[in-house]
């Protein structure tokens, strides 16, 4: 007995390949291609490191984040007082924990005397389990003091203006 395709939208169950099977096969092939692609990248990094990201550039690019407010000042005025960045380093987390920005000495850019969003994100230390309201500060939720916990490509790192005078490394116009 022939099956009525209108009653069985998946198509014949016995003869040939039903559309459901075809869909499964297609899915399996797609997964196979994905695995092959992943395997290819694993082979690229012969030392066994998983590639930093298999996500496309566009994925990274077009996830547009909230636009912060800018601060403007001059060289030589930037490491002064008023930024609100705690010397012990935890204060900087407020910078990334906030979508606000702070000026340096003037406090004119929304941060007030707490500078870079101290009220929102600035109180955290890295063992405080990432309580940032905007998700950008410590974030990782590791109780052992490890920020993010994943690779740099997908972690919840942060940044802000430091009150420290002696950097660990320097960056310049490359």
């Amino acid at each position, binding site marked *: 007995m022939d099956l009525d395709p209108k009653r069985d939208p998946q198509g014949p169950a016995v003869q040939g390949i039903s559309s459901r099977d075809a869909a499964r096969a297609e899915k399996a092939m797609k997964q196979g291609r994905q695995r092959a692609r992943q395997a290819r990248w694993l082979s690229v990094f012969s030392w066994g490191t998983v590639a930093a990201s298999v996500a496309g550039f566009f994925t990274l690019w077009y996830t547009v984040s909230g636009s912060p407010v800018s601060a403007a000042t001059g060289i030589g005025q930037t490491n002064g007082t008023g930024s609100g960045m705690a010397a012990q380093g935890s204060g900087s987390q407020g910078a990334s924990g906030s979508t606000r920005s702070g000026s340096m000495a003037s406090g004119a850019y929304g941060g007030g005397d707490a500078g870079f969003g101290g009220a929102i994100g600035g109180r955290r230390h890295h063992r405080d389990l990432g309580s940032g309201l905007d*998700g950008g500060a410590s974030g990782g939720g590791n109780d052992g003091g490890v920020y993010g916990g994943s690779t740099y490509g997908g972690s919840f790192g942060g940044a802000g203006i430091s009150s420290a005078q002696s950097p660990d490394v320097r960056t310049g116009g490359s």
Partner: protein
Amino acid sequence: MGLVTERRDDLVRTTFAAMGTTVEVVVADGEAAEPARARHVPGDTGGERLPGGTGVERLLDEARRLVADWERRLSRFHPDSDISRINAAAGRWVPVHPGTMEVLRLAEDARRATGGWYHPGLGRAMRAAGYGVSFSELTPAPPLQRSGPTPWGEWPEPAPHSGDLALPVDRTAYELDERALRVKVVEGSEIDLGGIAKGWIVEQVASWLRGMGLRQFIVNAGGDMVCVGLCGERPWRVGIDDPFGGTAPALTLDVWDLALATSGTYRRRWQAGDGIVHHLMDPRTGRPAQTDVVSCTVLHERLVVAEVLAKVALLLGRDAGTAWLAGQPQRGWVMIAADGEVRHAWTGRKSG
């Protein structure tokens, strides 16, 4: 320069010359003293551990080898690199390493995403400006002076035979056949992966070091760096160089688990005839960009993205660059203008 390793201020710092700059790997001393294989890392369920007996110095030596291997594939200054082979065979398919294919794909994605402001086909323009050899072989220009809004005068005319250096920014410089792992450069174009390859290599090294168990370190190539974890109990401190030659940083940042890149017109500058040129080319003209920004630093989860964002913002200039960055998925940026103004902005949301 060979491999130099020193311990100071609770940091193990290794430096070596590569990619036309100084590469440094900085490891928090606690990491170096306590191999990850002997340490429980909460939330870490996998990944490799330091092999028995492996010291951090040995890891860093291996990191140098990785950098050298990738540089040999991706630099246009190495005659046998994939990029040189592609450029020498314009219009023909050239087989490449999968890693090269990945960087070329990222570069093309970046060109599209920036409307051509980042363009990987600027090799010919770079050569015409004199940057056909490694930067160390060029005659350096004197330090940049603080100036008015437009710091640059007229550029020296390019060599007569160089023709029109402007690029069709809406068109690709090469075709990719990812399945067959081969690349064909469009005739008249030359690939230059400056502005993306270095960051990608740094990412590979950082990823490898993480895979080997390190959790607190920085890989930095000439200012483009990946900051992993913390420096002990505090964020990493990254000083942004003063473009006008001051010894103190123009600004110091606290950074953890992010990458940052700085583009600038003040360092890779050289004498070309009677004029001074820099290495950041405007794709629309094929000549060094005329911009009122001398330094732009951008933070992002991915260093390759940070590099592209920093470069394009610098090319756009202070106001257009500020507006453009506001719509981009960055985690913060610092811009230093030719008149000394420093602009910066921060966001807490994850980029991607």
